[in-house]
């Protein structure tokens, strides 16, 4: 059990979040972006389960092993279960939104889809007079 292994799981978690964030920042397709978001989420799985592991322990299910056998942390596993549900719900919702936005905007590229800006008031127009460019 080398020293590198001591932090590898945590480093992998940090890497997954960073690479997912990079994907979101650079994505040109909303469906791809949703995939990147799920990568960010898998960072939390890796971190939590990594924190709850102990060398030489069994799963926290005392069916084949008698109670009292050293087992890994069941709490983080319960947390990750909830997390997976969160991930599935978010993915479903985002994909629905993506499909709907395509039906209206005709594009999946976030660069060409922009939310309503509403324009600015003519009073605050930087150019002279009230002819603000919307």
């Amino acid at each position, binding site marked *: *059990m*080398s020293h*590198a*292994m001591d932090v*590898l*799981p945590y480093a*992998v978690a940090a*890497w*997954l979040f960073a*690479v*997912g964030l*990079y*994907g979101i920042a650079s*994505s*040109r*397709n909303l*469906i*791809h972006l*949703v*995939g*990147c978001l*799920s*990568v960010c989420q*898998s960072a939390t*799985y*890796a971190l939590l*389960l*990594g924190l*709850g*592991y102990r*060398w*030489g*322990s*069994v*799963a*926290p*299910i005392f069916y084949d092993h008698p109670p009292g056998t050293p*087992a*890994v942390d069941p709490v983080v*596993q319960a947390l*990750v*279960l909830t997390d*997976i*549900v969160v*991930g*599935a719900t978010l*993915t*479903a919702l985002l*994909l*629905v939104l*993506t*499909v709907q936005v*395509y*039906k*209206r*905007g*005709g594009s*999946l590229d976030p660069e060409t889809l922009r939310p309503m800006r509403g324009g600015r008031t003519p009073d605050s127009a930087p150019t002279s007079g009230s002819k603000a460019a919307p």
Partner: protein
Amino acid sequence: MSALLAVLFLLTAASGTAVVLVRDPGRQIFAIAANGLVLTLLFTALQAPDVALSELAVGVAAVPLLFLVALMAVRAGRPEAGSGGDEA
């Protein structure tokens, strides 16, 4: 055990990176399913069979399926705004 876990963690990082780098959504679905599979293996190795089973049902089956359906809907659908020149 240590080597196996190290390999699985590195594979997780690699498959996650692949999901980001495969920019074509059609191919990305395979990367997503592969990522789900790697995570399932990792969870099993981390002594979390409950989580692995969930990930198998959700990450390998349900979520890629949703992606696939969304992609099909987008490929087949024509936007109402009447912008011509789309596929299909």
